């Protein structure tokens, strides 16, 4: 593998069928040491024996969740600011959700409307552009909240945070591949962001499954059409690391999305365009290098008309 063109191996949930080992072999990932980020498992972070049994490489735990806990313990002012930031993010997400619901309902009704084709097409465009504008506004607000925190606690300043960041960099020395597991995407993204790992990881080969893959996108989109209390509208959570640009990754789409509801899917696709919405189901493998897809047999993208179609391999 050429270290100048790092490889992205993106997988779906590793249940019920585990395809991690085979996908790594097929992708030609060599036998070097691999750092495992399992912060998305929270307190179960580092419990990676199951993964060790699947791959021949030497794996080691890169603890971000535990490091964050230790950092919070050591730096009370940072912890306080972090909590405040999280409260602000939740408040912002709640306000966004309120507005989003109304706009999405309207957009779906208009997408289903029949009658004067030209007038309806115009209204559709406008309804979708309103949604996109709301998403952009929300992301701007979210970014401002993050920036305020980062201005106060920059990773390159001295202090406990900088010490942890230096220790993580040291842990990654001599490693060219990192594996990011699935799990709680908010917890994972917060830890990756807290330690400013985006730039560092972008130079490495990355294997990511589910939440681990989602964090690599430009934006993280939360979605679930089958919640017990009824469906929720897909929500922009925050920016991702931007390592897999131009894509929205949808783990376990088969179970989480109502894929036969084409109006709903069409709205999903058009709302997040020009990014390509790609499914990552159990057994899916998406291999990318230089931003190009080289293996995607098991991956579908949501077309503009709401159908799910095979991804064209470049």
């Amino acid at each position, binding site marked *: 593998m050429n270290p100048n063109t790092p490889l992205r191996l993106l997988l779906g*949930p*590793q*249940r*019920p069928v585990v395809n991690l080992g085979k996908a790594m072999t097929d992708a030609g990932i060599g036998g070097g040491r691999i750092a495992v980020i399992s912060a*998305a498992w*929270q*307190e*179960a972070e580092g419990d990676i024996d199951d993964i060790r049994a699947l791959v021949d490489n030497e794996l080691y735990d890169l603890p971000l969740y535990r490091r964050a806990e230790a950092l919070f313990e050591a730096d009370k002012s940072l912890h306080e600011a972090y909590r405040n930031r999280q409260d602000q993010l939740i408040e912002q997400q709640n306000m966004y959700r309120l507005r989003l619901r109304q706009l999405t309902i309207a957009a779906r009704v208009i997408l289903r409307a029949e009658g004067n084709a030209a007038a309806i097409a115009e209204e559709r465009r406008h309804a979708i552009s309103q949604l996109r504008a709301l998403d952009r506004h929300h992301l701007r607000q979210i970014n401002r909240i993050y920036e305020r925190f980062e201005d106060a606690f920059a990773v390159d300043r001295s202090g406990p945070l900088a010490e942890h960041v230096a220790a993580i960099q040291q842990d990654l020395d001599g490693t060219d591949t990192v594996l990011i597991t*699935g*799990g*709680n*995407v*908010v*917890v994972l993204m917060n830890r990756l962001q807290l330690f400013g790992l985006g730039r560092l990881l972008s130079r490495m080969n990355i294997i990511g499954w*589910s*939440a681990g893959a*989602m964090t690599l996108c430009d934006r993280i989109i*939360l979605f*679930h059409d089958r*919640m*017990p*209390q009824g469906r*929720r509208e897909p929500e922009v959570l925050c920016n991702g690391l931007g390592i897999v640009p131009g894509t929205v990754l949808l*783990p*376990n789409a088969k179970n989480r999305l109502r894929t036969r509801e084409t109006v709903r899917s069409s709205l999903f696709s058009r709302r997040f365009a020009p990014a390509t919405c790609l499914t990552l189901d159990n057994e899916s493998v998406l291999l990318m290098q230089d931003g190009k897809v080289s293996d995607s047999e098991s991956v579908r993208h949501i077309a503009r008309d709401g159908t799910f179609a095979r991804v064209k391999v470049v």
Partner: protein
Amino acid sequence: MTPALKKLLRKSAPSVSDVDAFVSENAFPLVDGTDVTFVYRGAAESVNLRCWISGLDTAQPFQALPGTDLWATTIELPKGSRIEYKFEVTHQGHKNLILDPLNKVIAHDPFGANSVCQGFGYERPEWAKHDPLSRVGALESRRFESRAFKEPRDIQVYLPATFRQNRRYPLLIVHDGDDYLRYADLKFVLDNLTHRLEIPSMIVALTQSPDRLKEYAGNDKHAQFLVDDLLPFMTAEYPLMDSVDSRCVMGASFGGVASLHAAWRYPEHFGSLLLQSGSFAFSDLGRHSRGPVFDPVVRFMNEFRKHPGRPADRVFMSCGVYESLIYENRSLVPHLQAKGVDLRFEEARDAHNWENWRDRLRIGLSWLMPGPAWLVYE
């Protein structure tokens, strides 16, 4: 009359083989839209449908179908309904209460079993069935000394599949826990809903009273048992979250009364309640007519209705519309809402039975204790 019966009776005297074919070719009871026809085959002087449905006569008489050994009766059952029933067959002067011999769908409860009529549109929820993909939690039996009852008490404790000693979990306390496991498939439900992230991984204390009609009937000793015996035991033995909103108590029928009573006697100990078909009998005037076993319940409920306090922040209630208790359950809603309780009340086209309570568990548990499905992408 259903088309299948009409076809059979078109002949003036259907032969035995015609009746055999009719019986083997159809599923019973015969469901034709909202008309449900129950059929009994055999010698009898009379046959009655017994289904203990509030709103229907206690015993619906069957009619003998001329020229056959069949008996039938038809009732109207709204879409999505589910009822439990038995046949009361009188033969040679003897009355027998039996399961429907032509219907294999049976529901069990602590008193035995009933045949089940699944009306048009009813489906047993798939999340309540065994799912081989769901990771399986563990049940362990525990015994501890109860100061309230001055004797040791046995409970079962459910630990989620991903249980780890270094994590903290919410606590759910279940009245009639063994019955919920046996008759409402609670283990499958917990495994499935946890696996699907619809509820958080939680620790569940399943209690079973040796004398539920006494201990669950608004009994102070039982409330003391939950708060002074069970909670400290669970806190000492298991890694529990320590906030009030991470503790939920649930129960059905008298178990619903016990849950509400404990939360009322000890406010700010339980964040949420799940009350299924609670036996919330009360009397605004004069005496109640539900029998002496309800006396302490009525005393408690009358007191509660005067001074409801705020037993919990969130309450999920459910009740079948074919239960006589629907009136008492509905009337409890405004009392709780007036105190600012975040309340959700679900009515079901079902009666006072375990499968009704099973079928409402997903909506109730996931509303009171929402899981991380929205944020977790495994």
